[in-house]
């Protein structure tokens, strides 16, 4: 579904991402891990078109994505969340989701006026579902900036889901979360996957990564040093060394 081949991004002399090859198949939950500064977020930004790549290609569902701006990639089905939450702070929770409902299906199925000016019954029902997914049903009229940190994360997750993506890129969604919130998040990730969305998860919190992913790619200094199931990756020598020689990468303190 998503194919990166030879993908590179250099910032001056720094090779943030170096010749990365990665394939994500439809319906999978794939993890992308690595120590700080290993190029995970840069990879997400390359896939979404925030940065232009130095070399290599991004293919999504067979279509070449190189050179396309972020909004076109979204319409092809690539949605994302941000490492540092980026909501529309002075819009309400409901409006945040409303704005994001812009999927290609809508363009053909509905007219101009209802799309831009009306909130059809279907729109309201979908947003109600999303509010339920984010567990924010009671806060729909609250400004996004008034939400607690965890709620903002949930809203951003729901906003990405509102675009009805085929592939959802999650950039450190568990950062700063407690055990309970991580458990909720992994339940939420499964719920979205079960509705037919493929997921690429960039994460430091090993508890989440090891728990939900089926395949993991490990980056270090912009290069992929390992790829396999969570078990395989945990036993990998190169991975253990990358995480400062820790005997168990599961401590996640890298």
């Amino acid at each position, binding site marked *: 579904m998503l194919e990166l081949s030879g993908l590179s991004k250099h910032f001056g002399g720094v090779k943030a991402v170096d010749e990365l090859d990665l394939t994500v198949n439809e319906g999978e939950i794939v993890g992308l891990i690595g120590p700080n500064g290993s190029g995970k977020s840069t990879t997400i930004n390359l896939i*979404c078109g*925030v940065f232009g790549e130095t070399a290599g290609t991004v293919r999504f569902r067979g279509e070449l994505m190189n050179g396309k*701006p*972020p*909004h*076109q990639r*979204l*319409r092809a089905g690539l*949605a*994302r969340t*941000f490492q540092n939450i*980026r*909501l*529309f*702070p*002075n*819009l*309400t929770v*409901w*409006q*945040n989701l*409303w*704005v*994001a*409902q*812009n*999927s290609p299906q809508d363009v053909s199925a509905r007219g101009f006026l209802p*799309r*831009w*000016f*009306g*909130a059809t019954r279907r729109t309201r029902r979908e947003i109600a579902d999303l509010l339920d997914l984010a567990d924010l049903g009671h806060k*729909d*009229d609250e*400004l996004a900036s008034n939400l607690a940190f965890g709620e903002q994360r949930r809203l951003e997750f729901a*906003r*990405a889901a*509102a*675009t009805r993506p085929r592939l959802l890129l999650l950039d450190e969604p568990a950062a700063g979360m407690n055990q309970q919130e991580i458990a909720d998040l992994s339940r939420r990730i499964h719920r979205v996957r079960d509705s037919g969305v493929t997921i690429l998860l960039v994460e430091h919190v090993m508890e989440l990564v090891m728990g939900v992913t089926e395949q993991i790619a490990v980056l270090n200094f912009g290069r992929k040093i390992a790829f396999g199931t969570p078990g395989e990756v945990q036993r990998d020598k190169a991975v253990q060394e990358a995480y400062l020689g820790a005997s168990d990468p599961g401590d996640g303190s890298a």
Partner: protein
Amino acid sequence: MSYYLGLAQLIGIHTLLGLSAYVLMLTGQLSLGQAGFFAIGAYCAGILTVIFELHIVPALLIAALLAAFFAFLVGFPALRVKGLMLVVATIAFGEFVRLFFFNLSWRVPRDGIHVGPDSTNGFREIRYFVANGWSAWEITLFVWTFVLLVMAALWWTDRSRAGAVLRAVGEDELAAQSVGLSLTTVKVTAMTAGGFIAGVGGALYAHTATYVDHLTFTVLLATFAISYPILGGLSSVFGTLVAVIFIQGVLVEGLRFMGDWRSIVFGLLIVVAMNLKPSGLFDARTARLLRRAVGLRGGEKSRA
């Protein structure tokens, strides 16, 4: 009485000017080119009623569409730059339009005299209202019909998804792109709508003033255009109206008795107002208070 009616017309026209900047400001863009679109509306509507002898309503609509068309054209290159660079680019456009009309001479004979734009001497014969015997009351009503129509349209847009989309772009461009919004499309649309509104304002201005020349449309007018929404705040269209009444009604007219001191007090009061109400004279809190006073509950699914 006619003085107050004239003031009411002026306030209406400047509200349109301010709203044209308001629309674009929702997307986070600041344009100092609104005087240019206002000038296009003024001159074109004047030419249409004077030289082509059209009725005021079609003349006004054609002029506004033309202003919108130019806003659309200018929008593509201008909105590729942001912040100060956009301000500079739009000032350049405004000056270009002003100098074009400064040089435009298009005189035609009509009833024994020559009428039409006369370059440096201005365009002096926009007498549609006088020629058709409109009273000051009728003119004021006419002006405010358009002001209220535009305000209603924008108020409604603000509550719709389109309004949320405009504000989303203004709040965070990267996040807006990441939910599939094309920044160019959204900003150019806002610019075009702003051009249309400024065009309506300009057309009304030309006919109420009966006389326009290039000096009306300097950067000073463009500065007024953006100062209304800045002072009034972006929480709703009423902010712009309140700011226009405050500036034109209270500061410009109300302080006339102060003579030369007026400009100083004018500036001072604006600084005081901005300090007391940093998010605008008509911010969300004022709106809430007003709603409670009138006994209405807040909009259920829309912003307060």
